């Protein structure tokens, strides 16, 4: 197991470098010039711009800039925003906790509601309630999250007046409820379907018959023997899902005006603030890599048949 973790950590290095490099290169290729944009409509001495660029290291070749960026990362230096001169780390520190809170909230919603729905349907596969759930999940998957967001906003904020259409800068848990539900709904549908299939399939397994023949009470047959087996694929999905929720938050944050990384990235893209974009994407990639490693390890714990060498 230790060797496996070590190997996985080693494998993460090229993936991490590759992903950040990819985003870095794309930002490098962005049209427009952030330094020139600073000056606005005024005409500025080209020499002055060149000096500024030199100071920021923007005149170096791509690989050199990337190298500087990487070495900076090791000192928790995410670079500086060109326009404001504000450290990118500060922007991230402002925005990231809010997005993490939103994503975690959505994640919890997904896990609790999705698994319950899946078990509920899977235990009685091919009945009316199973079909009902299937249709509901199909709808949740088909309606893009921004449409769902608008519908939620239209219904609960404008029509019923239950919630505020926008989330304040504090982003309280209660304010985040609707955005979290919207953000989590797609994953919720997948989790529910995966759980349903898994439960329905394991229900037919021989060991379930054994558990009944042992005279175990139904809640133990379902709660221990069925669930322990059925949750394995669901956990695997959930692991990669947290990263996806962080990435997907961009859209939801836009609709509900949440001051998270989605907004930050969006703003940074428009102002050509490469460092901010790369910094945020880097963090999301790290979250993704770490969670997928954790999930693989958890997988081995849940399923003793898996052996990592």
């Amino acid at each position, binding site marked *: 197991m230790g060797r496996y973790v070590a190997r996985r950590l080693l494998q993460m290095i090229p993936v991490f470098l590759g992903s950040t490099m990819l985003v870095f290169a794309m930002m490098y290729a962005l049209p427009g010039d952030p330094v020139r944009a600073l000056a606005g409509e005024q005409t500025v001495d080209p020499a002055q711009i060149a000096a500024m660029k030199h100071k920021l290291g923007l005149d170096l070749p791509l690989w050199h800039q990337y190298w500087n960026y990487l070495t900076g990362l090791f000192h928790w230096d995410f670079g500086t925003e060109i326009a404001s001169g504000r450290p990118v780390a500060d922007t991230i520190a402002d925005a990231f906790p809010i997005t993490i809170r939103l994503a975690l909230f959505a994640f919890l919603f997904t896990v609790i509601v999705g698994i319950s729905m899946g078990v509920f349907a899977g235990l009685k596969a091919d009945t009316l309630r199973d079909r009902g759930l299937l249709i509901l999940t199909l709808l949740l998957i088909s309606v893009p999250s921004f449409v769902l967001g608008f519908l939620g906003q239209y219904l609960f904020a404008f029509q019923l007046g239950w919630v505020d259409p926008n989330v304040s800068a504090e982003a309280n848990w209660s304010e985040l409820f609707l955005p979290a539900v919207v953000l989590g709904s797609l994953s919720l549908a997948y989790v529910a379907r995966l759980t349903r299939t898994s439960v329905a399939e394991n229900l037919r*397994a*021989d*060991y379930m*018959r*054994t*558990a*009944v*023949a*042992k*005279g*175990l*009470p139904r809640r*133990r047959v379902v709660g*221990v*023997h069925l669930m*322990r*087996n059925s949750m*394995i694929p669901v956990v695997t999905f959930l692991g990669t899902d947290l990263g996806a929720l962080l990435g997907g938050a961009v859209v939801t944050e836009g609709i509900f005006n949440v001051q998270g990384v989605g907004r930050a990235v969006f703003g940074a893209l428009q102002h050509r603030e490469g460092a901010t974009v790369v910094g945020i994407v880097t963090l999301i990639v790290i979250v993704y890599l770490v969670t997928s490693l954790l999930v693989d390890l958890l997988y081995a714990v*849940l*399923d*003793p*048949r898996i052996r990592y060498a």
Partner: protein
Amino acid sequence: MTIIDKTADVPAPRGSNDESGPLLEVRDLHVEFHTRDGVAKAVNGVNYNVSAGETLAVLGESGSGKSVTAQAIMGILDMPPGRIPKGEILFRGQDMLKMSNEERRQIRGQKIAMIFQDALSSLNPVLSVGYQLGEMFRVHKGMSKKDAKAKAIALMDRVRIPAAKERINDYPHQFSGGMRQRIMIAMALALEPDLIIADEPTTALDVTVQAQVMDLLAELQRDFNMGLILITHDLGVVADVADKIAVMYAGRIVETAPVHEIYKRPAHPYTKGLLESIPRLDQKGQELYAIKGLPPNLLHVPSGCAFNPRCTMAQDICRTDIPALLPVTERDGTELVGRGSACHFWKETIHG
């Protein structure tokens, strides 16, 4: 703990219809499955009984209803699509089909236990064998985790699994096939039930291991004086272990007999066919007999005797009238205890 049934302490291995009253009695049991293509009648009026210390072998091809009957006894039929329209299953005189779910659950595992064919898929793959064995004691006896574990180790010792203590936390896939089947047996044995139903317990095993497992099962049955229903399609397995045999075909019992008599003189053409299809050393060089045709489709069981399309002796009556399971007698009319045959021509079969 009533290991020894008071009413059955007169060993009566050869006569099951004595006054002591059997441990388990199946009466006119019918089971059907409602499928998309129609109703499959899997069991059509099965009668059999087992006493304490007795071994009943139920013999038949796949689809003969032998496993379905066992599942009905255990109460582990999938219902729906399964349904029991008619019949009684008496355990110590009480009809289990009329009991509440909770009452039946109390019987399962404690009074009647089951051993399944494929131990690898029948054991939970993600729980350690120690947990699965200990669960019996924790759930039924309310034991602590620690005590249950000690009991589980003792059980594994009892079924002669080497290094039980070290292997208690291993998972089913880490054991060999024979060892896994021993674990299944240990699990069935855990609460010293009155009756064990073994559904093809050795089919999935190597021939050498088969004998070991069968011997173990027979030994444990003797030690605990349990009733045993041994379901199999293998006549060879049966001979050494069983006291009596019930042969099933298309959901009916077509012949019953004490074990050794059936080998000598079968009273049903189907049994005869089965016996003749066993390879024998003294018939080296001869072509092996095989019953022609296929087992019947349970959705469309042939009219009359279900075996008639495959039977060499079939006459017109076989295609119209269902033969009842009637007592088999000697040529002179003396009763052959425990023998019965559901064939219009049983006389010709046994005597001719």
